C-alpha cells in the first residue's frame, strides 16, 4: 500500500515535470494564437473603430450582418473575394505544375542535388522581394520580360502586373517559382515512401507510365497531396507581403485581396471590429476545412 502510494506520487511528480517542460511554449502558443480569438469575441459586437478607440458602443449583430446588407462593404468585399479566389485557384495549379512535375522528374531520373539547390533557391526571396521582382519583370513599360517579349516580337500586348491578369496569373506564376523547391520536397518525400515492390509489379505487368502514375503513384501519395494543398490553401488565402509590394496598400486596386481589406480596416481606416468580424466570417469556414483536411491526411497516413 505504502509502496504503491509512493510510486504514484513519484509518477505524479514526473508528469508534473513533463508539463513544466512543455509549458513555456504551450503558454506562448495559446496566448498568441488561440486566446486572441476569445479576447476578440466581445469586440465583434461593438463599434470599436481602432485599437485606441475610447468611445465603444454595443451594436449587436450589425458587424456580422453588414456584409449582407451594406452595399458599400459589398463593393469592397466581393471584388476582393473574387481576386482572392482566383489567386488561390491559380496557386493550386502552380503547386502541381511546378512541384509535382519536378518531383516526378527527379524521382524518375534520380536525385540531383545541384538541381535541387537551384530549384529551392527562390524560397530565399521574401514576399516583398517577390512582389518587387514581379514589377521588375512585368511592369508595362519597363518590365524586363516585357522588353524581351517585345524584342522577340512574340506578344502584341505587353503584360501588366497592375491588371487582373497580373494578380491572377503572373503573381501565382512567380509564387509557383518561389515555392517550387518546397512543394517538390513534399511530393518527392511522398514518392519515396511508395513501396518499391508495387512499382516493380506494375512494370512487370506492363503498365505504361501514365497507368503507373494514375494507378500506383497517386493513390499512395494522398498524404502529400493533402499536406501541400492545405498549406497552399491557408497560405494563399492570407497572402499579404507580395501584394503589399505591388502597391496593395496604396495605389493598386487590383492587389486589394481580402487580407488587404482586413488589414486596412484594422490598421488604417478605423473599422477595427468590422474588419475582425469579416475576417472571422471568411476564415473560420476555411479553418474548419483545414482541420478536416488534416484529419483526412492523418487517417490516410496510418493505412
Amino acid at each position, binding site marked *: 500500500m505504502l509502496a504503491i502510494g509512493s510510486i504514484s506520487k513519484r509518477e505524479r511528480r*514526473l508528469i508534473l*515535470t*513533463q*508539463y513544466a*517542460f*512543455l*509549458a*513555456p*511554449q504551450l503558454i*506562448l*502558443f495559446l496566448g*498568441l494564437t488561440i486566446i*486572441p480569438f476569445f*479576447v476578440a469575441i466581445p469586440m465583434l459586437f461593438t463599434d470599436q473603430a481602432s*485599437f485606441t478607440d475610447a468611445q465603444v458602443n454595443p451594436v449587436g449583430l450589425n458587424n456580422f450582418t453588414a456584409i449582407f446588407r451594406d452595399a458599400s462593404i459589398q463593393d469592397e468585399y466581393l471584388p476582393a473575394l473574387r481576386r482572392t479566389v482566383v489567386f488561390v485557384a491559380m496557386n493550386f495549379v502552380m503547386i502541381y505544375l511546378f512541384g509535382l512535375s*519536378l518531383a516526378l*522528374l527527379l524521382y*524518375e531520373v534520380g536525385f*540531383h*542535388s545541384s538541381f535541387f*539547390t*537551384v530549384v*529551392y*533557391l527562390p524560397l*530565399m*526571396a*521574401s*514576399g*516583398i522581394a517577390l512582389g*518587387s*521582382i514581379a514589377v*521588375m*519583370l512585368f511592369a508595362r513599360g*519597363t518590365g*524586363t520580360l516585357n*522588353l524581351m517579349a517585345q524584342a522577340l516580337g512574340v506578344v502584341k500586348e505587353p503584360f501588366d502586373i497592375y491588371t487582373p491578369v497580373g494578380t491572377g496569373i503572373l503573381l501565382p506564376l512567380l509564387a509557383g*517559382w518561389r515555392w*517550387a523547391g*518546397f512543394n517538390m*520536397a*513534399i511530393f518527392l*518525400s511522398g514518392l519515396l515512401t511508395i513501396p518499391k515492390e508495387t512499382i516493380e509489379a506494375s512494370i512487370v505487368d506492363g503498365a505504361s507510365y501514365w497507368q503507373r502514375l494514375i494507378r500506383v503513384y497517386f493513390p499512395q501519395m494522398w498524404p502529400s497531396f493533402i499536406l501541400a494543398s*492545405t*498549406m497552399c490553401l*491557408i497560405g494563399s*488565402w*492570407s497572402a*499579404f*507581403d507580395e501584394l*503589399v*509590394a505591388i502597391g496593395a496598400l496604396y495605389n493598386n486596386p487590383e492587389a486589394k485581396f481580402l*487580407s488587404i481589406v*482586413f*488589414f486596412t480596416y*484594422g490598421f488604417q481606416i478605423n473599422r477595427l471590429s468590422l474588419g*475582425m468580424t469579416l*475576417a472571422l466570417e471568411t*476564415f*473560420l469556414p*476555411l479553418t474548419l476545412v483545414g482541420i478536416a483536411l488534416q484529419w483526412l491526411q492523418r487517417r490516410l497516413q496510418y493505412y
Partner: protein
Amino acid sequence: MAQSLVIDSPQAPTRRALSMTQRRRLLKGFAAVFMVIYAILTLFPFYALLVRSFVSTKDAVDLHLWIPKADELSLDAQIGNLSVFYSLDMAKFKADMGIPPDAFLMSRTSLRTIAQKYNIPEDKLKSYFAGYYTFNGWITLLNDSEFWGSLARTILLVCASLIGIIVLSIFTGYGLAGLRRRDQMAIYNLYLLQMVIPSMLIILPQFMVIQRLQGLFPGSEQPGMLRWVLQFVGLIMINIKGTALSTMIMTSAISGIPQDLQDSAQIDGASHWQYIRYILFPLLKVPVVSLIVIMLPLFWNLFLEPYVYLDPNVGTLMPLTYSMQGAYRTNFQMMYASVLASIIPLALVYLVFRRFFIHGVMSGAIKG
C-alpha cells in the same frame, strides 16, 4: 493465337530490350536538357535583378541583359534630376564641393553653372561623379546607415528566434514524450491547429494582446530602449511560439529515442536537465538542422509582424526594403539594389550550407 506468340517470341524480346535502353537514354537526355533549361529560368529573375540594379531609371525603357555602359557625365546635367533619379545626397555634395551648406541650388541648375559659380574645377566634378550613373543604387544603399542597422537587427532577431524555437521545441517534444497518449495527442493537435489558422485571422486580435502586454510596462509609450526591447521581445515571442512543423519534427524525433536511455541516465543520477543537455540534444542533430533550415528563411523574410509591431526607425530588413520601394520610386537602381540586398545574405547562407538545407528539408518533409 498461341502460334503467333511462338513465332514472334524470338524477335520481340531483343527489339523490346533495345528500345527500352534507348528510351531510357532518351528520357535521361530529355530530362537533362529540361533540368538545365528550368535551372536557367529559375535563376533568371535573380540575374535580371542584378542587372537592373545597375540600369538607371532613364534607361529602364530599353532592354538590358547586361550592365549597360553608362554615358559619361554631362556637365549640362541638372542637379534636380541627379537628386531625383540618382538619389544624389545634396548635403554631402555641397560639403564635398565646398559649397556653403545654406546655398540654395535650383533643381534646374546645371553642373556647369554650379562649377562656374563656385569655382569648382570641371575635372573635380567629373571625377566626383565617375561611375555614379552605374553604381549609384549600391552606393546610396551601402552608405545608408538605416540599411546596416536593420540588417543587424534582422540578424539579431533571426538568431534569437532560432535559438528560442530550438530550445522550446525540444522541451515540448521532451515533455510530450512522457505524457499519456491521450494528453499527448490533445496538445499535439492544438499545435496542428497553427497550420490551418490563417495569419490574417489572428493578426488583429494578436496585436491587441501584445499591446496590452506591453502596456503593463510603464514608459513603454515613449520612444527609447525599453520600448524597443519590448517590441523586439514581442516579435521573438511570436516567432518561437511553436508551429505545427516544429512540434511534429521534435516530437517524432524524441519519441523515437529508446526509453532505456533515459532510464539508465536516471539510474546514474542525471537530472532532467542533464539528460536533455548531454544525451538528448546530441542525438537530435538531424531534427535541429531540419528546424533551422525550414525556420531560417521564414524568420529572415518576415514582413507583416515587424511591419506592425516595430517602430519604423528600429525595424528589420523587410519593412525597410518595402519602405525603400516607396521612398526611391524614381530611382530604379536603388529600388532593385535594395531588393537584391535583402536576398543576398540569406542566399549566401543557403548556398554555403546547401547540403544541410537539402537534407533537412527532405527529412522535415517526410515528418510532415
